[in-house]
């Protein structure tokens, strides 16, 4: 890791208010991404990982969302949360681009695909006129869309889900970003297409020396491409470490539970275990360690005190067990 990472998020706290008051969907999350690195953030839906990603670019809808004071998001040391709107717009799509979960709804249905990409090209490059069109076609070509010149004139509804996600990626690449945030980029796609999109992202990262922040609920996806992995639960990062370490020796019971719930190609036929219960609502975060109601090995202390990240043998984990069993 570099001394000044490309992106550094520290103590990010995001509140959401509804009729019942304000709740912290993200509660003190810190992580960093180095240049050219792939960080995977994993967690069940509702754990706050998408909100964290959106917070980076200031895309959390306000209201109801609100990034609480004390949070910090730094791009090469530059604070983004207090940046001017104009500066933030330059960052968006220029230095940091984002690909979203739902390719079906993330493209504007009334604008042609090519035009939507061209918008990004024009916004972040000096290209104008036909050059923009050429650039759009080459981007589409690069993300593997056949017949790119034709497709650039297509409406979003005329493309399949995979094609749309490729178009979204092309759009994200338009500004030649240093960091690409991919928020569940494959969740809505067929399994066969998932793999290809993932491979595309990985290839692009290598080719452009771009960092990739991959947000997913699917450990399998992370395993394929991530250098490092952070596991989120109930608004907090509960474990973080290098990908191979984390998969080999998870320290947090939640990580372990997640790992047990995915099929392992090396041990076919094994019964999969699901973690009992579901992620609580931000309005009803449990006291102490937020995982304790679902944890099979919870201690008394877990009910009272909230652990922070501690050095575990292979990773860093927020679990009292780490302390108990050195």
């Amino acid at each position, binding site marked *: 890791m570099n001394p000044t990472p490309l992106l550094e998020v520290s103590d990010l706290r995001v509140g959401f208010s*509804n*009729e019942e008051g304000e709740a912290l969907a993200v509660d003190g999350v810190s992580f960093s991404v180095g240049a050219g690195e792939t960080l995977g953030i994993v967690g069940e839906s509702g754990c706050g990982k998408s909100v964290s990603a959106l917070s980076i670019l200031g895309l959390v809808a306000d*209201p*109801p969302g609100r990034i609480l004071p004390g949070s910090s998001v730094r791009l090469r040391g530059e604070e983004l949360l207090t940046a001017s709107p104009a500066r933030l717009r330059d960052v968006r799509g220029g230095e940091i681009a984002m690909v979203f979960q739902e390719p079906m709804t993330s493209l504007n249905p009334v604008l042609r695909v090519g035009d939507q990409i061209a918008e990004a090209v024009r916004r972040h490059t000096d290209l104008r006129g036909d050059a923009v069109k050429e650039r759009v076609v080459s981007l589409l070509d690069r993300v593997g869309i056949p017949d790119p010149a034709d497709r650039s004139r297509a409406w979003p509804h005329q493309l399949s889900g995979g094609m749309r996600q490729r178009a979204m990626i092309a759009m994200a690449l338009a500004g030649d970003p240093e960091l690409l945030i991919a928020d569940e980029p494959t969740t809505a796609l067929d399994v066969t297409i998932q793999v290809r999109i993932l491979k595309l992202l990985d290839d692009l990262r290598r080719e452009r020396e771009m960092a990739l922040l991959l947000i997913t609920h699917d450990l399998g996806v992370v395993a394929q491409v991530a250098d490092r992995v952070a596991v989120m639960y109930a608004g907090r990062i509960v474990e973080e470490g290098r990908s191979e370490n984390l998969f080999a020796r998870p320290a947090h019971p939640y990580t372990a539970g997640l790992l047990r719930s995915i099929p392992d190609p090396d041990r076919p036929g094994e019964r999969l275990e699901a973690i009992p*219960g*579901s992620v*609580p*609502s931000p309005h*009803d975060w449990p006291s102490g360690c937020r995982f304790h109601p679902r944890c099979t090995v919870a201690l008394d202390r877990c009910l009272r005190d909230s652990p922070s990240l501690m050095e575990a043998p292979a990773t860093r984990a927020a679990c009292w067990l780490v302390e108990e069993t050195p």
Partner: protein
Amino acid sequence: MSKRTVPESHSGQPDPLDIVFPGISALFAGRLSGALTLGSWLSLLAVAWFRRRRILDLLAVSQWDGILALLSLVVLLAAIWVAGNRGRFRSTGLRDPRVGRSPMALAGRRFRRHHQAVLGLALLAALTVVTLLTPVLAPFDPDTLNLATGRLLAPSAAHWMGTDELGRDLLSRVLYGARISLTIGFLAVLIAITLGTAIGAVAGYAGGWTDTILMRTVDLFLSFPRIVLLITVVAVFEPSIALIVVVLGLTGWMGVSRLVRGQVLSVREREYVQAAHALGYGPGRVLRRHILPNVLTPVIVAATLGIGNAILAEAALSYLGLGVQPPTASWGNIIQSGGDRIIDAWWIATFPGLAIVLTVMSFNLVGDGLRDALDPRHVE
């Protein structure tokens, strides 16, 4: 939208106090809506007690319009109130955080938190009181003439809204006019939504030729010059309040039927309806058990908003001299009588117009609140 139809497995008991004094639990929770609701009901009860003798007078046959207006308002308020509180009845029991709340409960909460809707409801409640107590509140008899000294008096302490060209007290006439206008609005909408729901449901459910024919009928009605129908009907039959109600009802159902048809079309394709079909249930049962309950919500909203429109339509009809017959006061015909004198006696047309705006606005506020509360998309 399918979420709303998830059967509500858990049921709590309604707060018994809330049944006796509606809104009391909300009041104790420190909410404006509770204070307003409870306040209006209590004042209604109090005035009713003190004036019980005169209220008995209201039951005289000549006051049927007032009774009708009152009944319709009470029914409407009760319906809205029940809709708003239904969820609360069901979920006042122990709350399991993991289960969450039923959509109806959330809708009720949203409605009660909807300040504008509560304001609208409070206005309507006030209107109910006014309608009930018109004979008590009205400072003068609305039909007593004062040709000698009372003609065209500007608003003053004695006549808050002034007097009309025959020396009748305008405030009293506007108050009595409320009964007529509200009765017409409510009943016309009742006809319109009944007809519209029936036609829309049949068209959407049956599909095919039935649908085509019914929807072409809707087009025909929409493209038909309403004025021809109105004038003719008024000409053929005795113009009366009942007739106006029927006419407005018969010319106002098309929007509802389109709405219902659309709803039915979308619900029809849902899995549980398909399942009901697969289980061999007949169309009647499917319509009744699965489709209509879904359609009800938008229809209630449409009805609330429709009452406002019906009041406006009655006013326009009376304005053209084809509506409520004199000397009975309706807001429309008071405005009509003031139209000629708009410059020298501005108050005649102005005040009933304001009454219309206020009333229609209340209905719209409540309608908006209901829609926002019942539509899960509007969770903010």
